Structure formats: C-alpha cells, structure tokens
C-alpha cells in the first residue's frame, strides 16, 4: 500500500482498516488503496474493496489498486492526452474503459499463470484523478466519493452500484461492465477543488448520509450526500496539525487511529474500512 501523504499541493491521508468480522473469522483485510503523484498538482487515488465471497479478493484488491494507478499515470503522461486542459467526457470514458480493461487483462493473466480462478480475485474499484481545478472519477461497483469546492460545499461525485440485497455489487472481474457502459460510471468535475474523498462501503455510513426516513409517508429513501459535519472538522483539524509541523507519517498515524476507532461504531464496524481524504494546502 502506498501511503505517501503529501504532494506539493495536497495533504492526503489514507488508511485501510480490517473489519471486526474479518478479524473474528481470521481473514485478511480485503480493502486496498493506492496513491500516486503525477506532478506537483496532480495525482491519482484508487480504492478497491475485495468481494467478501471471493477468498483471495484481498490479493485482487491490491493488484487492481496498484495497476490502475500505474497504468493511468502512464496514460496521463502520454502526449496525446493533456490533462487537465484537454478533458472531455468521452475522452475520460474511453481512457477509463481502456485502463480498466488492461487491469482486468492483467488480473486474468495473473490468475492463469498462478493457476487461480480469476473470480476469486473479484473487487470493486474507484479511481480519482485530482488536481486543483478538475477531478476525474470512474468506478465499478460500490463505495462513495465526493469533493468540496472552495465555498465549502461537499458533493457526491459517483453513484454506487448496489444489487438487490444490501451487500451485492459489481466487480472488475464481472463481464457485464465491459459490454454495458452504464456499469462503468465516469464523471468530470470542473470547479475550484478544496478537498476530495473516496472510500470503500465500510466507511460510507460514517461519512455519508446514505438513507433517511420519511415519517409522513412511512418510507425509507436512499441518499448519497457527503456529511459535511463529518468532513469539515476533519479537514480543519488535519490542516491545523499540518501547520503545526506534523510529518506525513504522524498525520497518517492520526488518520489511522481515527479510521480504526474514531467512534464506537467505527471501532465495531464489521466490514473493512478504507477512507482517503485529500486537502488542497492553502
């Protein structure tokens, strides 16, 4: 896992923590994340959540997180694509598709070479390219992501794919997304970016308002709203610690403590938890 905390422009904290059920059942953390810098202002952040039903998905998640970052970085650095000045929705959709197909091919080759069923490596993937004025995001499966503009408004930038049951979703190893564009969601945000976040579903109920109840109608309804009372204090506190001279390592240690046991429910969460938070330094 690559945990480099700050680029020149960004303060980034990240952590993948094992869930309580996984500890009890003696299975590894199936979440993985990867951060890679492209230049002083631009970088790539990836979060993968291995399928609980696939016994080696922790391995799949690690491979996909790293490969996606590395291959996309290579893509960004090609002359043909001048990020962020030359991005439109079609280009980004095509690049996402091609990169994730390559990652999928890599997984297939790895599985074949090591005599594995590739389905055992199933995982979701969320990939974010961040820069001060543009965010690119694409994803397969669930999890959440959001950004905050310089007016302090937090907004979701992806819609998780959920199956009929609460714990079902789509994985990079599924065939469906290759032939049906709607399962690979790609978005571009052009705004003055102050912060961004991406996370596995194990964190979503702590950082997002994911549902609510309408008492009058007696129905529950889904929401996809980053909870600003969660993010606002955290970005403030992290920036303040940074200004006090906390090192990358110390900041990440604080972040790790927070993700592991920031409140009683987070500490008790059964699912693996990954949360990346990037803040543009003032």
């Amino acid at each position, binding site marked *: 896992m690559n945990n480099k905390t700050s680029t020149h422009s960004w303060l980034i904290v990240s952590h993948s923590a094992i*869930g309580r*059920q996984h500890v009890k*059942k003696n299975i590894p953390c199936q979440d993985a994340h990867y951060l890679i810098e492209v230049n002083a202002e631009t970088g790539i952040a990836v979060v993968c959540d291995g*399928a*609980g*039903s*696939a016994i080696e998905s922790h391995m799949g998640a690690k491979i996909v997180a790293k490969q996606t970052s590395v291959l996309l970085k290579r893509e960004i650095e090609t002359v043909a694509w001048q990020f962020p000045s030359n991005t439109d929705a079609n280009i980004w959709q095509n690049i996402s598709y091609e990169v994730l197909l390559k990652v999928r091919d890599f997984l297939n080759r790895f599985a074949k070479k090591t005599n594995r069923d590739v389905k055992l490596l199933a995982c979701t993937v969320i990939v974010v390219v961040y820069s001060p004025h543009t965010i690119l995001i694409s994803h397969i499966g669930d999890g959440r992501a959001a950004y905050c503009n310089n007016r302090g408004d937090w907004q979701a930038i992806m819609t998780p794919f*959920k199956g009929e*049951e*609460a*714990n*079902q979703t789509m994985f990079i190893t599924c065939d469906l997304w290759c032939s049906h564009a709607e399962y690979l969601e790609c978005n571009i945000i052009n705004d003055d970016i102050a912060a961004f976040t991406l996370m596995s*579903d*194990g964190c979503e*109920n*702590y*950082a*997002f*308002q*994911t*549902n*609510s*109840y309408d008492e009058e109608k*007696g*129905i*529950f*309804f*889904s929401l996809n709203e980053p*909870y600003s*009372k*969660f*993010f606002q*204090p*955290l970005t403030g*506190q*992290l920036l303040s*610690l940074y200004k006090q001279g906390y090192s990358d390592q110390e900041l990440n240690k*604080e*972040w790790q*403590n*927070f993700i592991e*046991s*920031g*409140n009683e*429910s*987070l500490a*008790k969460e*059964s*699912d693996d938890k990954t949360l990346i938070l990037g803040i543009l330094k003032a």
Partner: protein
Amino acid sequence: MLLKAEFPRNYEAKTICCFVLDTSGSMGGEPIAELNNGLKEFHEEIHNDETTAQRLEIAIVTFDNNIKIVQEPALVEDFAAPTLTVTGTTRMVDGVREAITLVETRKQWYKQTGQQYLRPWIILITDGAPDGGQNIHGLAQEIRDGMNNKAFVFLAVGVKGADMKILQTISGSLKEKSVGPYMLQGLKFSEFFEWMSASMAIASSSAEGDKVSLPKPTWTDGFEI
C-alpha cells in the same frame, strides 16, 4: 484521539430470520420446554447485542394440525419471546410454505418502503415426519429454487425422532454446497439458539455476497456451510 468528527444517522439494512417450529403432540414435555427456553435465551441474546437488535427481524411460524404465525416479523424490542404449547399432528410442509410466503412478503415490503435488506433465513425445527398427503417433493423443489435464486437460506434442524431422510430431501444448497439438515444432539436447544444468535449477528452484518461463514456449532455433529 486528535481527530474528531460528527457522524450522520443512517438506518441499518434488515435481515429477517423466520423460525418454523414443530408444535405437534410429540414435542410435548421436555422438548417443548427446552425449545421455549432456547427461544427466550435467543431473544435475550439478540436484545443485548445493540447492533444486531437493530438489524435482525424475527418471525415465528408454528405447525401442528394448524399453521399459525405466532410472531409477525419484528425487531426483538417490539415483541416478547412466546411460550409455545403442543397439540395435534405435523403439517410441516404447510408450515414451511407459510414461512416462504412470509419472508417473500416481507422482502416486498422492504422494497416498497425503500429499505435495504440482506438474504432472509428460514429455520425449520421438527421432531417428526410430516403428515401423510403433504407434497414433500413440491416443497423440496420450492426450497431448492429459493436457495438457487438467492431468495432465502433454508436450514432444517431435526430433534430426536425427526425423519432425517425427509429433511435431507427438502434441504437445498448454497454455491453447490448442501446446507443441512442437522440433527440436534439430545435437547441442546440452548446451544442451538446461542449459535443462532451468533450466526445472525454475522449474517446481519455481512458484507459478504453469497457466502456467510458461521461459527462452529456445539449442538450437532458435523457441520459445514
């Protein structure tokens, strides 16, 4: 802890567990007393587990010569454990069918009210053989289809005297692995329900796709799921 934040309030995804319990005459005496005790302990265990208590809905169907929904689906805080009494014969097939309908109806209700849910569980406990003339094979097909279509997980538990061959016939499989039936050792209802509450805590918090691995039970020999 240096970092502090506020957390939103979200509602939990629900799991329903429907017990289908044999209250025919042969369960009289010690077996029904132990079953009642076990149910009470189960209720208490879930009640004491704050997280599971908010996720797990329990329903109870009994069968003898009548089929009764003793408990409609509810969180433990909304009902008290019942005290079951015995009478008559064993309309097991009708009992299980009632449970299948009940969980399907509940699923529809979850959908209509916009609630997230996990796969329902149907747990059959019986000590006998079903009354003659009931369509065992029809039920077996319905259970197999239900398990294959991921509509529910069905678990059959036999108490001494149960016709395990019939329970075998109506048991389905998950990912080509058969699930049950299991024979309760002696009258270890207490252990069984303790295992059930631990299992339901896992199932109701599962982020696990199809596969849920449950704790090793002490109330039966040989267990694999």
